[in-house]
Each structure stands twice: as C-alpha cells, then as structure tokens.
C-alpha cells in the first residue's frame, strides 16, 4: 500500500515528541532546571504539525467526504476516541508543564511532588500515543 510521506513523518515524529515530553517530566522529577524552550517547542510542534495532521485526516474521514466510505465504522469510532484522548493529553501536558515551570521558580518540583498526578498523566499520554500509532498501522498495514 502507498503510505503518504507525511503519515510516516507524523508517526515517527510523534515518538520524538513523546521523548521530549518524558524528558521534560524526568528533569523535573530529578530536580533539574525546567527546559522551557524545549517544552514550548514540543507543545507547538505537537499542535501545529502532528495534531493538525491528525485533525486533517479526521476531517477527511468524516461523513460527506469520499474517503469516509472506505473506512469501517468501528475504525471511525476509534479515530474519534483517539482524537478526544489526544486533546485531553495535550491539554494536561501544557497546563502541568506551565505549573511545573512556575513552581520550580519557587524551589518546588511539581511532578516530583505529585507522583499520582504525574503517573496518571504519563499513562494517558502513552495510551494516546499508542492508539495513534495503532491507527497508523491498522490503516496502512492491514
């Protein structure tokens, strides 16, 4: 099957974004300075490249477009759930990152001080990434 170049790019870059997210959390967890430029770059790249790509594909898969008829209903529901989960994961990452940056200025370590919240966020983020990669594999390899 012919896989669009941007689908490959998005599927691979998503893993680098995840590495960036883990790096931001890990540095804070290890009481090291918050990498704000990296945090901002990851946040904007994720929204303007990866999520934009996903939203574009989701719009094409929506009713009223020729592509929509070629996708099974169960896959569409999976797309929609992944879309909402990605929104939630992204929103939480940015807000928690901003809090961590501010707390660090006062000598506190936001992620380290809130392990339950941090682990919950990491689990949600991981599910969001794994479902995204699963959609890529299911769409183009099965």
């Amino acid at each position, binding site marked *: 099957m012919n896989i669009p170049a941007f689908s490959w790019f998005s599927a691979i870059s998503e893993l680098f974004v995840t590495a960036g997210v883990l790096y931001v959390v890990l540095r804070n967890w290890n009481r090291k300075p918050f990498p704000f430029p990296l945090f901002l770059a990851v946040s904007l790249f994720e*929204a*303007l490249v990866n*999520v*934009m790509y996903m*939203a*574009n594909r*989701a*719009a*094409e*898969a*929506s*009713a*009223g*477009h020729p592509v*929509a008829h070629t996708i099974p*209903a169960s896959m*569409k*529901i999976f*797309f*929609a759930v992944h*879309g*909402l989960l990605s*929104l939630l994961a*992204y*929103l939480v990452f*940015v*807000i928690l990152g*901003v*809090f961590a*940056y*501010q*707390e660090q200025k*006062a000598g506190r370590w936001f992620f380290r001080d809130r392990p339950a919240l941090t682990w919950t966020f990491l689990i949600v983020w991981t599910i969001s990434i794994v479902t995204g990669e699963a959609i890529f594999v299911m769409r183009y390899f099965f």
Partner: protein
Amino acid sequence: MAAPKPPRPTTRAQRLRSPLLIALWALFAIEALTGIIVFFARLAVGRAPTVSLHWYAGYAFTLVYAIYQIQHWNRVQPLRARLDHVLGVVATSSLVITQVSGYWVGWEWFMRGRPMGYTAFPPALSATHNVMSMLAMTFVGAHLGAVLLRESRARAAKRSDHEAGLR
C-alpha cells in the same frame, strides 16, 4: 435622575465574579462542549447534532469576547516578557484564529441552507478550526492557571512575611 453606575471591579476576586466574565465562561463552555460533540459525532456516526447551537452561541461568544478582550488589554498593557503574558498572547491568537476559521466553516454551512445533516466541511478548514480550538482551550487554561498560581504564591509569601514580622 439616572441611577449611579456600579463601580468597575478592581480586585481579582471581583473581576472573576463579573457578569461579563461569567457570560464569557458560560459561552466558552457551550462552544467547547458542542464543538467536541460535533467533532466526535461527525467522525463516529456521520452527524453533527449540536452544530446550530455551536454556530449561534459562537456569534454571542465573539461579541462578549471582543468586549472582554478590549477591557482586559486596557488593564494589562503593555505586553511584558512574562510567562502569563506569553500564554495570554498564544491564547488570544488561538481564539481569534478559531473564530475566523469558525465563521468560515459556518459560512459554508450557511450557504447550503443550514441542512441538519450537512457535515462535509472542507477538511483543511475544519482541521484548522479544530486544532486552533484545542490550542485555545489549552492556553486559556494555562494562562489562567499561571496567573492564579502566581497570585496564590504571592499571597502565601506575604502571609509568611507577616507572620515572621509578628514573631
């Protein structure tokens, strides 16, 4: 004789309770909720059940938001190299692009006679509107969170200084 005008809110607590901001939050919540429903339903079941409410509430949101943003800018200007200001600029830009792209999507819908089942919005335009609304929700939350956290820290520091002075 005309009734005296109520005083303009001055403290953060008063501003958070102002009718304008409450109306803005209510409309923002309606827009976010109906937008999420439209996104999910268009994709999963091929319908856009709350699109009319999303469209008409969007008009009201733009009006209330414009008034709020002018007042807000007059109060916080000039722009400073501070986290809450940077987040505010990203939030404002996202909100403006969301509304412009929303009117464009709405125009497509309106020009087709507002059919209930119509969902074939142009993909790139629909994607831009969805992503920008996600950025708007995220950065409005981050902006507000940053401001409230900074103030709560300042209050705690003031209280601690006061207690140290009493000892």
